[in-house]
């Protein structure tokens, strides 16, 4: 051991570093060789993510090209920001951005308030059987696909046969409504459908936070004669505020991407409803699948990816400041 150290010290400096480097490399190689099996196990997953996720990331360059399938994607001409220039010249870019943000904003605010309300209420059901039962029932809509939801909404809103036009509106003495061509009503309809589908889910998250609150707080509050309302306001809400903050920030990070199924399936892809139901995701889809307009569609898609990415980084930095453990990174 000592011998070798002296030998190394005697060598010219250049050799020495090279030797140290080679030795470090050899050590690293033998380490990899020793754990090759563990390393081999991650290959299928990484290969999959490379194809399914990373190739499309490289594919964002399409937005800067004039796609011509005769030439092939890679040989198509570069056109710089032309696709973006077209996109932002139209009214469309503004409409879809506005719709996406307004819908998601309403979903975040209403969804959070209602979910907290339901979670607090659910925590008041002391009978375990009923608590489970109610929870399962309000969670049921979360389980089903948006296609089925579209059928359910159709049964309610169909112009000729729908339950609203046949039973509810006559009962209220109102005239039938042409739901699927009246764009002005859809912000309310889609918000209702979204809440109906997701409240069960978000309520579970808040319920988990409420259940975690130390019961002693409530016991001593009751000894002091605090009312139910007072306990909720002064114990429950303040103690679940961290959860509320984190959930809200994470949702804001995703405000630029919307639930495609909700906006595509539920309005039955109706053109008449587009002014109020078109969001970035449906716009990109229609551009690609209906018009085959790769330029415009990929430009809108990249616009969404980049702003979405920036928002995620930004909100994550905020979450990190609040609570390191809950930050994504």
């Amino acid at each position, binding site marked *: 051991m000592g011998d070798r150290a002296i030998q190394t010290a005697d060598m010219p400096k250049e050799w020495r570093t090279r030797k140290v480097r080679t030795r470090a490399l050899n050590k690293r190689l033998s*380490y990899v060789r020793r*754990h090759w*099996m*563990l390393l081999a*196990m*991650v290959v*299928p*997953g*990484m290969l999959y*993510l490379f*194809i*399914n996720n990373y190739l*499309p*990331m*490289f*594919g964002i360059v399409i*937005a800067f090209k004039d796609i011509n399938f005769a030439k092939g*994607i890679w040989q198509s001409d570069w056109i710089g920001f032309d696709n973006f220039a077209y996109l932002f010249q139209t009214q469309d870019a503004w409409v879809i951005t506005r719709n996406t943000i307004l819908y998601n904003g309403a979903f975040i605010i209403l969804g959070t308030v209602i979910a907290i309300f339901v979670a607090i*209420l659910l925590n*008041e059901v*002391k009978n375990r059987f*009923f608590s489970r039962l109610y929870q*399962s*029932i309000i*969670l*049921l*809509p979360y*389980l*089903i*696909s948006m*296609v*089925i939801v*579209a*059928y*359910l*909404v*159709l049964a*309610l809103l169909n112009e*000729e*046969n*729908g339950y609203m*036009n046949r*039973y509810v509106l006559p009962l209220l003495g109102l005239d039938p409504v042409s739901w699927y061509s009246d764009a002005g009503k859809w912000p309310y309809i889609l918000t209702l459908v979204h809440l*109906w589908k997701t409240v069960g889910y978000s309520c579970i*998250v808040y319920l988990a936070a409420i259940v975690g609150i130390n019961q002693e707080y409530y016991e001593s509050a009751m000894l002091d004669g605090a009312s*139910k309302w007072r306990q909720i306001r002064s114990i429950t809400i303040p103690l679940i505020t961290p959860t509320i903050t984190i*959930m809200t920030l*994470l949702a804001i990070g995703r405000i630029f991407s919307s639930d495609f199924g909700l906006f595509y*399936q539920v309005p*039955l*892809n109706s053109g008449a409803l587009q002014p109020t139901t078109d969001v970035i995701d449906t716009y*990109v889809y229609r551009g*690609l699948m209906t018009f085959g307009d790769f330029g415009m569609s*990929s430009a809108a*898609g990249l616009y969404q*990816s980049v702003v979405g990415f920036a928002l995620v*980084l930004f909100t994550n930095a905020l979450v990190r400041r609040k609570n390191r453990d*809950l930050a*994504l*990174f």
Partner: protein
Amino acid sequence: MKSNPVYVFAVHAAFVAMSIAALFPFLLLVAASFTDEQAIIEHGYALIPERFSLDAYAYLFSNSVMIMRSYGITAFITVVGTTLGLLITTLIAYPLSRNILPFRSFISFFVFFTLLFQGGLVPFYLVYTDLLHMKDTIWALLLPNLLTNGFFILLMRSFFSLSIPGEVVESAYVDGANELTIYYRIVMPLALPGLATIGLMLLISYWNDWYNGLIFINDGTLFSIQNLLNRMLADVQYLQQNNLSGQAAAATSVPISTVRMAIAVIGVLPLIAAYPFFQKYFVKGLTIGAVKG
């Protein structure tokens, strides 16, 4: 702890109202599927059928080729997709949970970055159609949902590092077991609750998937049940045009408005019927999913 009975009653009443709101559309759907077609034309979809009828289901069963095939496609992608998805997820998640994995931080980042940035629909579509030539193949229904992104991998990794005792793995290692043996002999059996949870989420996402079929499948023989439902939403005649091989006589009196509802019932029934049995795992999956991300 005593509670005011009026208060208890009010809480229960609120939940009964919410339960009705959650279930009402389903009840309407089921009722409509059992109603006589003429009664629907006269009275609309009603909660209590004006005239009870099994015509819609009789029609579905007499023209069941397409529906059965769609069911077959859905069952196939659900079983194969969930199995493969679980396999690949755990194969990458388990090494990531071990700190001896070479290049661990790079691999973690590689997985994690897929959660942050997406290429978007157009490049995704071109990868599967132009590069892999999977348009109108069963692969297009199977592959895109396999991992979706790195989310389940990260969940499973945390599950492994929390629930698999390091000493157990170490002692097996000392006894001469190799990593693959440790993975399927020790780690997988210990991780059953986690596997059940992630497997259930995968299963539901495959059963409910209509998106991949919408963008990649035009060939009706490859439609999953969700895609068939989706197509019938846009075009009520779809089943009729594609199903009646020479039985034109039946076409004159297809109970369209009820058949539509009956097929939606068939599409959602297996999931709802199984719901009470997997509810516990479903709730668990949603909660762990929400805590991190």
